[in-house]
């Protein structure tokens, strides 16, 4: 632990970078996945093709995807974030779709019958009822994003992956262990927070 004592500022910076990478990637992911999921929930025939395509992207090894993006996006923050966003889509979109399609049809019928328009139905009924599944998707995607974000170091985007890469390159086991533990702690912390949000969303309906 000597390394941590002398380099806590550096490790702290890497942690913050990691948080920023993961956080911004998740924010962008949700902004894309939410409307896409809603669209798929409304237009049934699009579901198969789009989810199939996202599944295909999901099977590409993350490092290859990252390398493929370098010619387009150069090095740094963007190729890393784009990779993370692409990986998060499958889980997020699928959970939005499942959450919305799984709503009791009688509830949707009632929403129509009361005279809600499409937007009112979405905002007042469908999204709140899909929220637990949406948050479950967000939690799973966030955890895997925290893990995958370690490869950002490969394109000079920083993050805790730096410790792992440096450690491997210089055979510094201490760095590797500290990096691994830091990533795990981050994942555990995110899990606890998001799990709490999930439980809250389930409770707020009696």
């Amino acid at each position: 632990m000597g390394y941590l004592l002398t380099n806590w500022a550096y490790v702290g910076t890497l942690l913050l970078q990691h948080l920023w990478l993961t956080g911004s990637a998740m924010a962008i992911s949700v902004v894309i996945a939410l409307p896409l999921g809603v669209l798929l929930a409304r237009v049934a025939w699009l579901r198969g093709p789009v989810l199939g395509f996202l599944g295909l992207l999901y099977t590409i090894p993350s490092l290859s995807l990252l390398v493929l993006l370098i010619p387009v996006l150069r090095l740094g923050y963007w190729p890393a974030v784009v990779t993370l966003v692409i990986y998060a889509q499958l889980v997020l979109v699928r959970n939005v779709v499942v959450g919305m399609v799984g709503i009791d049809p009688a509830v949707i019928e009632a929403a129509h019958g009361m005279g809600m328009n499409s937007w009112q139905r979405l905002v007042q009924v469908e999204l709140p009822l899909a929220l637990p599944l949406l948050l479950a998707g967000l939690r799973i995607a966030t955890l895997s994003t925290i893990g995958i974000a370690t490869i950002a170091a490969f394109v000079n985007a920083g993050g805790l992956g730096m410790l792992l890469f440096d450690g491997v390159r210089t055979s510094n086991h201490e760095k590797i262990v500290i990096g691994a533990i830091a990533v795990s702690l981050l994942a555990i912390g995110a899990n606890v927070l998001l799990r709490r949000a999930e439980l809250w969303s389930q409770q707020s309906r009696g």
Partner: protein
Amino acid sequence: MSIIVAEGVTKRFSSDSRPAVDAVSFAVDPGEFIVLLGPSGCGKTTLLKMINRIYEPTSGQLLIDGVDSRSLPVTHLRRRIGYAIQQTGLFPHFRVEQNIAVVPRLLGWERPRIEARITELLDLVGLPHDFRRRYPRQLSGGQQQRVGLARALAADPAIMLMDEPFGALDAITRARLQDELLHIQRKVHKTILFVTHDIEEALRLADRMMVMNHGQIVQFDTPLTILTRPCTRFVEQLTSANDVLRRLSLLTVASALGRERPPAAGGSADLPPLHPQDDLRFALTQLLGAGESSLPVIDDGREVGRLTLADLRAMLPSTVAGLEGHVPVSGA
């Protein structure tokens, strides 16, 4: 003027060869309690859902208040029509008060008006005020239906569509809610279209019954006429009209009295009174038990008429006539 007029309304689902609703025409007057009765799959729900345009008719036209229902934006039309269904469709993430407030909020009512309306409706449907903040899941099936009814009534629509609202309830709760619905209807005078496949429920509630089969209206008349003069064997079998005692048990004192009968003068203090909602089989037992030829009918402490043995007897020959006079339906 009729509040609802259907002219040759047909609904054909692409998956089915025969139409779910087949060129039906009818007219409903304001304040009528209409019960749609018929076997499962005969098109009752489909017909109901065409009125608030959850389904669009394949052909034909529906006039609401004399206006083609397609001429209004569909959300505006629906906010003017109460809608209650068997599964309630209550919003599980909304408290009771929020569920009741849905349509008033869509209509942009002021907060105080909504609050007052919620309180008024809880009283009307017989729910305690401290249920306001409960979630639907914290209520029994009967209580959920009461909330569903309150929600449908919330914006005081002239028309109420109710699709087997009591169909999933136990017999005791169902009977109680039927009574209360009649009680509420006497206060609010809605035009109600109520779907059921339960003949007893239909006879109990209906001003007029619309008997349906295979997407068509077979007979549309008062419960008394449906029972005493079924126009086809199908209707006769549906109502078991050939069993006199059963038939009496299905008819209410109110239906035998007729609606225009003036109240008779007193002199009946010590006789067992009848209630308009008592069935005629019970009335017959009371008449025979008291050894009288007539008994007073009391509603809300007021005599509203006298039921005589002659009233009951008057229905017997017509039964026979109805049975002899029936026209066999092809394919029935």
